[in-house]
Each structure stands twice: as structure tokens, then as C-alpha cells.
């Protein structure tokens, strides 16, 4: 019983310390736990593979720096995947904090492809306020909604935009989203209305919300949180930051599960005693 009493009075800072050590240790000394690629991730990769080489894909990155660990790895891998298929990529952002981050990530990946040039093979159209209204307006013409790109260039002068008119110009929409506006709104306003095939990468906490869309094939594939990003990296044969982070997340989850079990055992013992 002394153990139960001791645990019930445990200073929560000890829990913080253990959690910190469990997250830090595998980042310094990776455990390299095996990852299994799940069907939604297979669907995501297959949808990009099915895009005809050389076509122009719309990629909407709707997140801000708070979601870097989960969503930047998927942005990186998806962008690399598309470039490796010689696709052109038009990037938009409906979160005001996102375009700078997305520009850094895409520029970093694009350096791996020295023959690809900004404005010819990819463009970052930046942020536009208006949420769902922007999505619907893009269906009437992309250039009307985004007259200038993130770097201040007139969009009409960019070679990549000459073949882009509206959603009919794209064979696929890749949406990486952290919340509102994001995947749900793209499905409701664009996929359902303009019948644009779509895949999504979302945060782990919001992933359950999109399983109905996955089952109805409104989403061709989905990456859920860091686990989804890591599985995508494995499916692509890459070793990125998500795969490295999965060991830390594994131990973190294990510790939270342990906290739930031990907390309830302690509570049960105390209730029985009283």
C-alpha cells in the first residue's frame, strides 16, 4: 500500500522528467523500430503515382509552425515524390502562418533537383484569407484569386501558370492540413463540387474525422500524424525526420499508456482501502 500512497502523492514534475528523457533518448540513440505501411498511406502514395508524369498538381499546405513535426515531413516527402515524377506543383496556403514555412521546405527539397526552377516547375502562391470562399473562387480561376505569388511575382507572367486555369487543370489535389480551414473544407467545397481527386495529410488528433471520407473514396489516401508521415517515408524508401521521430513517439505513447494503467490501479487501491 505504501507504493500506492507514494504514487498518489508523486510530484508531477517527475512525470515531466521521465517523459522528457523518454522523448530525448531515442532522438539521440535511435531504436529503429520496424514500421508497417497501412492502407491509407498506400492509397496516398498510389494516388500520386497514378498522376500522369508532367502534369500540374495542386498542393494546399494549410498549417503553421505549431504542426512542424507532423506535417513538414509529409510536405517534404510528397513534394519530393511529385518532383521525382516530373510533375509541376502549384502551392497555396489558407493559414496565415504557413507560407514562409512552406517556402523554406519546398526550396530545400527543390535543391535536390537542380534542373527544376521556381516559376517553371513549382510556384508558391502564398496565403489568401477567406477560407471556403477562396476554395470556391479558385474554381472560377486561380489567377483571379492569387494575382501575385508569395515572392511578389505577377502570377500571369510565370510559365507554370500558363497552363493553369481552374480546378480542371489539376489531376490531383494534395492537401496537408492542421485544422480549419483544411481537409474537411477541401472535401466539402472542392472535391464534392468540382470532383477533383484528392489525398490528405493531417495531424494525428484530427485524423479520425476523415476516415468517413476515406471509406467513401472522397479521399484516395491519407497520412495521419507523424506515424502516417513515417509510413510514407518508408513506402518511398526515405529516412526522414518522421521515421526518426517515431521511436520517440513510441516511447511517449508507451509512457502515457503506463500512466493511465498505473493511475487507475492506484485509484482502485485507494478506493478499496477507504
Amino acid at each position: 500500500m505504501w507504493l500506492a500512497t507514494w504514487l498518489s502523492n508523486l510530484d508531477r514534475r517527475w512525470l515531466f522528467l521521465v517523459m522528457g528523457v523518454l522523448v530525448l533518448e531515442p532522438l539521440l540513440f535511435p531504436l529503429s523500430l520496424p514500421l508497417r505501411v497501412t492502407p491509407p498511406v498506400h492509397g496516398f502514395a498510389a494516388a500520386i503515382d497514378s498522376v500522369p508524369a508532367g502534369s500540374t498538381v495542386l498542393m494546399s499546405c494549410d498549417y503553421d509552425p505549431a504542426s512542424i513535426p507532423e506535417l513538414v515531413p509529409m510536405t517534404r516527402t510528397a513534394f519530393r515524390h511529385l518532383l521525382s515524377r516530373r510533375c509541376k506543383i502549384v502551392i497555396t496556403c489558407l493559414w496565415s502562418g504557413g507560407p514562409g514555412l512552406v517556402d523554406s521546405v519546398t526550396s530545400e527539397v527543390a535543391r535536390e533537383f537542380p534542373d527544376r526552377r521556381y516559376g517553371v516547375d513549382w510556384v508558391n502562391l502564398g496565403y489568401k484569407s477567406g477560407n471556403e470562399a477562396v476554395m470556391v473562387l479558385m474554381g472560377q480561376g486561380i489567377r483571379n484569386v492569387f494575382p501575385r505569388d508569395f515572392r511578389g511575382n505577377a502570377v500571369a507572367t510565370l510559365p507554370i501558370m500558363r497552363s493553369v486555369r481552374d480546378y480542371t487543370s489539376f489531376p490531383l489535389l494534395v492537401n496537408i492540413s492542421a485544422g480549419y480551414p483544411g481537409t474537411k473544407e477541401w472535401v466539402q467545397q472542392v472535391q464534392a463540387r468540382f470532383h477533383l481527386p484528392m489525398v490528405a495529410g493531417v495531424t494525428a488528433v484530427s485524423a479520425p474525422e476523415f476516415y468517413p471520407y476515406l471509406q467513401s473514396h472522397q479521399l484516395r489516401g491519407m497520412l495521419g500524424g507523424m506515424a502516417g508521415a513515417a509510413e510514407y517515408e518508408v513506402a518511398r524508401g526515405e529516412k526522414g525526420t518522421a521515421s526518426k521521430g517515431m521511436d520517440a513517439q513510441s516511447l511517449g505513447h508507451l509512457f502515457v499508456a503506463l500512466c493511465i494503467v498505473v493511475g487507475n490501479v492506484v485509484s482502485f487501491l485507494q478506493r478499496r482501502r477507504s
Partner: protein
Amino acid sequence: MKREVPLFITGAIGLFMILSFFVPHHWVSVPADFLQACAVIVVAFGYVLGGANVLRVNLEGISRRERGWGYKIVLVVSLLGTVAIGIADGLRHNGSFPVEGTPSKWIYDNLYATMSGTMFALLAFFIASAAFRAFRIRTFDAGLLAVAALIVMLGRVPVGDVATSWLPEWLRLGTLQQWIMDVPQNASKRAILIGAALGVMATGLRVILGIERSYLGGED
């Protein structure tokens, strides 16, 4: 008239936008596009109003020396400083910002991004503490929830599969969590989505028909 005119405008535009979804004729689609473009501009003005409101609330708090007024000074100085630097950078770089090497980009990379990440990362510590102290199984329903949560939490990460690799495939945590996500979770989520959609439609109709008037404000 103060209430009737806004109610009429709301009803007429609401019905027109519903019509535009079904009628692709340019007599309908062109005005509908114009109204949607107006919505984008109005939302952009919301940022200005939001910023002004943040300033007003915090300046009032500072002048009254409310609790935590020192933090409010930090907020106001940061807000005004970031806006001023952003405008200066925008003017210098032909409206494009944050460009590499500019103060705006430095603020974005070294303050905004790092502080956002830090706030989010703190969740891991508080979740552990909450799991230990607050997640109590006192009923059968709570027990079901806890079991499902443990299976999904461990099944979503590699350690779950490693720990149950000796079991048959259908009993492994990875397979069980996929089943929970695909079947019971999906069924309940779909019910919630359909319920919420019906609620949104009902509220929309109430606004268009002038039954729901709370958006007009309380006073006549």
C-alpha cells in the same frame, strides 16, 4: 427598418447563393462570384478589426494596471514591432515577404516558429500528467473508452506491433487499432458528421428565413 433591411439582405443573398449552386447560367454565376470575392475582402478586413481589438483590450488593461499588465506590454510592443517591420520589409521587397535574410523572416523563423512549436510540445508533458491523475475508469463505458484508447495509442506506433509480434496477425495491436478506426470509430464519426451537417443546414435556413436573429446583435 434597422432589423428588417439586414434580414432582407441576408435572406435574399442566402437564397441567391443556394441558387448559384444549382444554376450555372452566367446571370447567376457572375454575381455569385462577385459576392464570393466580396466575402474574401470582408474576411481580410477582419484581421484589421482583430488587431485593433487586441490593441484596445490590452491598452485598457495596461492603463488600469490589471493583473499581468506587464505581459500585455510585451504583447503590444511585439504586435506593433512585427507589423512595423513587416510593412517596412514589404515596401523594400515589392510586397513579397518574408524573404530570406529580412528581419521579418528572422522573426518568423526564430520567434514565431520556435514559440509555436514549444507551446505544442508542452502538450506531451501535460497529457502524461493528466493520464496519471485524471483519466479514471469508474464506469463500464469509461472502461471501454480506456481499452480502445490504449489499443489505438499503442497500435499506432511501432512499439505496439513489436510487443505483440508473437500473436496471430488479427490479434496484433496494429491490426486491432486499424479495425477500431475503420469500424466503430468510423460509424460514430459518420453519425456525428451527418448530424452536424443537418444542424448546419437547419441553422442556415433559420438565418435565411429570419428566424435566427442573434447575429444582428442584442439591442434594437
